[in-house]
C-alpha cells in the first residue's frame, strides 16, 4: 500500500470513531422505570402487588412483632435481643430505635406505592373500568392499613395523598382524626367496590375491608357503624368459624373459612421474601438444657424474645382448648448425647425449678420460658432456616365477633355483646366440654380485652389494641412486671423516628415525653 493510502485509511478510521462516539443519550435498559412499567395493564398490576408486598415488612417480621408484642400485658422480654427497652419502657426507648424507624419507613413505602398506582392508573387505557376499580379498591385498602399502623403507633403523622414525584422534605404532621377520616373513606371505597371473594387467595375482599372498617369505626367512636358493619360481615360474608381452635392454626389448613385476610407466605422460595419468621421469636432457649437440641417440631430456632406474662398464662379456664393450642410448655428429649441419667429419647423433659422442685411443665423465666405454637413452621428444611412458609393471619372471623361485641358494649347493648362473645367461647372449649357462658353483666372492656388475649394473643395486635382502647398504661402497670415501674402515659405513642425530624426542613415536633 502506498503511504498516502495508509494515511487516508488511518484518517478515515479515526473520523469514523469520532462520529460514532458522539451520542450521550442515556437509556436505562436494565432499570424498571415508572414511565415504562406503569403504562401497561400488567405494570399497574405489578404496582398493586408491590403495594401488598410491603405488608410482609409488618407481619411475620421481628420489627412488627416487637412493636406489637413487647411492653403489653401479655408478653415481657426473654433473654436475648436488643429491644428490651420497648418492654421495660426505659429511656433507651427513644427516637433512635431502628425498629421504630423501620415500621415508619415501611408504612410510607407502602403508602407511596399505593399513591403511585392511584395517580397513574387512569392514564392506562387498556385496563377495563371494572378492573381499575378493583385495583383502586385494593390499594386504597392497603393505604388505609398502613395509616392504621402509623396513627396507632405514632399519633399524628404526615398525610400523603399523592405520589411523591420530587425531593420532598416538608411533610408536616396532620391530626390523626383527619387521617382516620381519610382511612375511613379509603376503606369504604374498598367495601363498596370489592366482592366477597377475590380472584386469588390473599387479595383484599369486601370482608377484609369491612373488618378494617369496623376497627376504624371503633377508633372514631362511631359504634353504630361498627355494629352494622360487623353484622353485615358476619351475616352476609362467606366466613365461618372453624370447628376447633386447633383447626384454625393447623399447618395444612392455612386457607380456611375463618380467615378474612392473611399476608401470604409460601414454599416458593423466590416469592417468599424473607418469609414468615414468627416461629423464631417466641421460642425459648430450650436447646441449652440437657437432653435437648434444636428441633423444628419443638419450636425450632430459639430467639428467646417474647416471654408470656403470668397474667397471660393464668387467663385461661380449665376447659379452654386455646391454652394448649397457644402455649408450648412441655418438651421431649431429643438429644442422645446429653440425655440425663434415666431419661430416654421421647420422654417428656423434667425441669428443675428455681426452688428445687421438679415438673414436666417448663419454668417461665427469661431464658427458659413458655413458647407459642401458633407460629410453628415445622416443614422448614432445617431448624436454622429463618424464612417460614406460614401465612400470617391479619383478620379472622373470631376477631370480628369480638370487635362487634366491643361496639355493642359501648352502646350499652351488653346482652347482644355477650351473645357474640359466647359464640367465640363456645368454639374454644375442649371437645365434649363447655366454657362458662357469660351474661350481659360480665361484659366489660376488660373482659373483652381478656377474651381477645385468649383468642388472638401473639398475633401482632396487642399493643395497638391496648392503645386503641386506652388500656395500655393501666394493664402494663398491672400485669407486666418489667414495664410496670417505668411506663408513663406518654408511652402510648412511640417516638417519631429521629431521622424524620432531622431530615425535615420544616419543624417536625417530637411526641411529648421523648
Amino acid at each position: 500500500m502506498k503511504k498516502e493510502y495508509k494515511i487516508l485509511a488511518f484518517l478515515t478510521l479515526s473520523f469514523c470513531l469520532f462520529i460514532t462516539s458522539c451520542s450521550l443519550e442515556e437509556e436505562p435498559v436494565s432499570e424498571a422505570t415508572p414511565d415504562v412499567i406503569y403504562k401497561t395493564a400488567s405494570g399497574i398490576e405489578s404496582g398493586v402487588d408491590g403495594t401488598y408486598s410491603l405488608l410482609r415488612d409488618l407481619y411475620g417480621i421481628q420489627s412488627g412483632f416487637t412493636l406489637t408484642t413487647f411492653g403489653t400485658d401479655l408478653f415481657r422480654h426473654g433473654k436475648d435481643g436488643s429491644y428490651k427497652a420497648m418492654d421495660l419502657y426505659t429511656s433507651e426507648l427513644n427516637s433512635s430505635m431502628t425498629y421504630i424507624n423501620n415500621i415508619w419507613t415501611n408504612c410510607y413505602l407502602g403508602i407511596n406505592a399505593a399513591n403511585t398506582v392511584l395517580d397513574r392508573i387512569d392514564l392506562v387505557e387498556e385496563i377495563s373500568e371494572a378492573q381499575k376499580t378493583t385495583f383502586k379498591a385494593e390499594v386504597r385498602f392497603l393505604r388505609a392499613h398502613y395509616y392504621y399502623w402509623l396513627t396507632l403507633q405514632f399519633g399524628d403523622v404526615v398525610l400523603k395523598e399523592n405520589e411523591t414525584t420530587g425531593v420532598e422534605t416538608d411533610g408536616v404532621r396532620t391530626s390523626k382524626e383527619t387521617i382516620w377520616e381519610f382511612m375511613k373513606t379509603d376503606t369504604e371505597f374498598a367495601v363498596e367496590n370489592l366482592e366477597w371473594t377475590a380472584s386469588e387467595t390473599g387479595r383484599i375482599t369486601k370482608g377484609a375491608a369491612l373488618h378494617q372498617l369496623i376497627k376504624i369505626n371503633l377508633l372514631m367512636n362511631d359504634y353504630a357503624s361498627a355494629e352494622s358493619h360487623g353484622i353485615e360481615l358476619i351475616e352476609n360474608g362467606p366466613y365461618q368459624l372453624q370447628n376447633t381452635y386447633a383447626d384454625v392454626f393447623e399447618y395444612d389448613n392455612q386457607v380456611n373459612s375463618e380467615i378474612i385476610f392473611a399476608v401470604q407466605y409460601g414454599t416458593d422460595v423466590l416469592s417468599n421474601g424473607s418469609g414468615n419468621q414468627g416461629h423464631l421469636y417466641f421460642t425459648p432457649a430450650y436447646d441449652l438444657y440437657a437432653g435437648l437440641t434444636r428441633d423444628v417440631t419443638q419450636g425450632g430456632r430459639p430467639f428467646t424474645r417474647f416471654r408470656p406474662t403470668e397474667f397471660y398464662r393464668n387467663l385461661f379456664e380449665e376447659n379452654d382448648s386455646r391454652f394448649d393450642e397457644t402455649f408450648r410448655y412441655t418438651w421431649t428429649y431429643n438429644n442422645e448425647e446429653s440425655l440425663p441419667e434415666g431419661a430416654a429419647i421421647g420422654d417428656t423433659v423434667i425441669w428443675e425449678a428455681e426452688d428445687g422442685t421438679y415438673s414436666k411443665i417448663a419454668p417461665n423465666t427469661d431464658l427458659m420460658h413458655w413458647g407459642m405454637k401458633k407460629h410453628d413452621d415445622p416443614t422448614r428444611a432445617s431448624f436454622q432456616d429463618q424464612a417460614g412458609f406460614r401465612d400470617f393471619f391479619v383478620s379472622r372471623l373470631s376477631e370480628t365477633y369480638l370487635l362487634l361485641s366491643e361496639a355493642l358494649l359501648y352502646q350499652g347493648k351488653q346482652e347482644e355483646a355477650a351473645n357474640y362473645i359466647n359464640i367465640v367461647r363456645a368454639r374454644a372449649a375442649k371437645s365434649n366440654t363447655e366454657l362458662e357462658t357469660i351474661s350481659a353483666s360480665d361484659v366489660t372492656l376488660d373482659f373483652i380485652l381478656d377474651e381477645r388475649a385468649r383468642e388472638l394473643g401473639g398475633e401482632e395486635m396487642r399493643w395497638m389494641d391496648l392503645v386503641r382502647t386506652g388500656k395500655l398504661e393501666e394493664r402494663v402497670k398491672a400485669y407486666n412486671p418489667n414495664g410496670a415501674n417505668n411506663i408513663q402515659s406518654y408511652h402510648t405513642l412511640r417516638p417519631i423516628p429521629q431521622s424524620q425530624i432531622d431530615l425535615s426542613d420544616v419543624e417536625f415536633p417530637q411526641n411529648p415525653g421523648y
Partner: protein
Amino acid sequence: MLRLNPLGIPYNDDGTARFRPTNDESQRVNPLSDLQNSVDERYVTHVFASIYGTYNFNDHLSYRLNIGPDLEIGNRGYFYGSETTNNQGGLSTAGVSDSDVFSFTIENILNYANTFNDKHEFSATAVHSFQTQTTKSSYTNVSNLPYDSQSYNNLSTAGEVSGVGSNYKHWDLLSFTGRLNYQFDDRYLLTFTARADGSSRFSEGNKWGFFPSAALAWRLSEESFFNVSQEAVSDLKLRVSYGETGNTGIEPYQTFSVLEKVEYMFGDSGVIGFIPNTVSNPNLTWETTKQFNVGLDFEIWKQKLSGSINYYVAQTEDLLLPRSLPSSSGFSTVFENIGSTENKGIEVNLSIKNIINTDNFNWNVDLNFSKNTNKITELYGDGLDDIGNEWFLGNPINVFYDYKKTGIWQLDEAELAESYGFEPGQIKVEDIDNNGIINADDRTILGSETPDWIGGLTNRINYKGFGFSFVIYTRQNAKTYSRWYENNNRLAGRYNNIDVDYWTPENPTNANPRPNVSQESVYLGSTLTYKDVSFVRVRNIVFSYSIPNPVLDRLKIKDLSFNITADNPFTFTSYEGLDPEFESDGDRALYPSVQTLSMGLNLTF
C-alpha cells in the same frame, strides 16, 4: 473471631473440628469449620491492549490516535457447607456470578509546536476524547446441594434456586480540550486549557460542563535582576494557577426514577411487584471544583536543599452527594448537587542532600508535610444546617455527630441519674441544652475523620558499604468511629469481650459502663467508639551491607549485598485497638497492617 468464647472446645475426640465449640448454640461457630467447609473464589481477567497511530504532517504539526480497549472479566464462585457461620448448620448454599466490564477510550490528538526567534516556545494541542464503559453482570444462587464435594460446579443439582439476576450499566464521556503552552526564554511559562465535557449520566440540558484553567510559572532565578549567586540559589520558580475541574462520578441512571422489584404471592403462585425506589432528579449536573494554587519551587545552598511549598484554596460547588430524605416522602435518598465546600491547605516537600558528605559518608533526608482544612460553606441557601445528613455549615463534611460521653453515672449521682432516666453504671452523656432531659437535641459535633496534618520523614545514611534508612509517617488529630470497638465491646457477657476497664459498684470508673447480661449492645454505646487515631509510625527500617568491589572482583562476583528490613516495627499511638492507621468507619475494621522482619541476600554474577 475475637468474640469467640475462649472456653470452647475446638476439636472433637476424633480430631475433627467441633462445629459449636460451646453448648450455646447461638454462639459463634468454630472458625476451623468455616475454613474446612467453605470456598469463595474470585478470578479477574484483565486485558488492556492499547494501540496508537501517529502522523506527522510536518515538523510542527502532528496527529495522534489512541485507542484503548479494556476488558475486565470477573468470576466468582462460592460454596458454604452446612457447618459454616453463613449457614449455621442449615442448608448448604452455593452460587456463581460473572461480570464483564468493557471500557473503551478513543483520543484524537492534534499537536502543533514551534519555536520563534529561539526564545518563544509555543505549542497548541487539541484533543477529542471519548470514553465509554459497559458493565454486564449476572448471578445464580442456590441452596440445598446434595453433595458438598461439587463446591459450586454443579448447581443444577441443588434443591432450590434461591436467586438469579442480571444487570447492565453503561456510561459515556465525551470531551473536547484545547491547550496552549507558551514559554519565553525559560523564564515565563504560560498554559491555558479549555475543556468541555459531556457526560451521559446527566439529563439533557445538563450534560455539558466547561472547565477552563490557566497557569503561570515564573523562573525568578533566570532573571537578570536576580543578583544571587548560582551557588546560593540555583533554581527559584514561582507558580500561580487557577483551574476548574469537573466530577461526574456517580452511577449511571441517577436522573431517572427507578422502581424496585419485589416479590409477593397469592395462594401458592408467586408474583412480581414493583414499588417506587428512587425519586428522579433531572437537575443533576457536574460538580465543579475551582482551585487556586500558588507555589514556590526552589533549590538552594549548592543544591543541598531543594523543595516546594504549595498553598491552595479550592471551592467545590454543586457536590454530587447522596442526600437522605425523610421517610415520609416514600424515598430514602436522592443524588443531588448540594451546596459548596472549601478546602484550604498547604503542602511542603523538602529534600536535603548530603548533609554530611565525605567520600565514605553521606546522609539524605526527605520531609513532607501537608495540612488541609475542609468546611461546608453553603448548603441549601437558607443558612441552615442539615442535621439529618450530618452536614453543618462551617464544619467538615464528614463530622461525627452524637452524644458526648462525660463518664459513667456513679452511685452518689443516683438521684440525678434517675431524673434523666439512667441508673449508676450506665454511660453519662452531656445534657447540651441543659433542660434536664437527654434526647436527640443533646447531640453535638464530636470531631472529624480529617486529620489536622500528616507528615513523613525519610532518612538515608550510607557509610562505606553500610546503609541505614528509615521512613516515619505520622497523622495527627484524626478521629474515627471504630467498628472494632463497637463489635467487641458489648459488655453483655455472652460473647468474648475486649479487656476494658468497666464499672462495678466497687470499681467506679468513668471509662466503660457496667456489663449487663441481658443486653445485646451497650445503650449509647456509640459514644464509646469515637477514638483518636493519631499515630507516629516507623514504616520501615533497612540495614544493608554491600561487600566492597575489590573483594568481589577476586571472587568474580559482580555484586553481593545483605539486608535486614523491618516493616512497621514501631507505632506510637494512644489508640488501643489493633491498628490506628487502618481503623475504619466501614462495616468492618480493615485488615491491620502487617509487621514483618525480613533478611535478604543479593548476589549478582
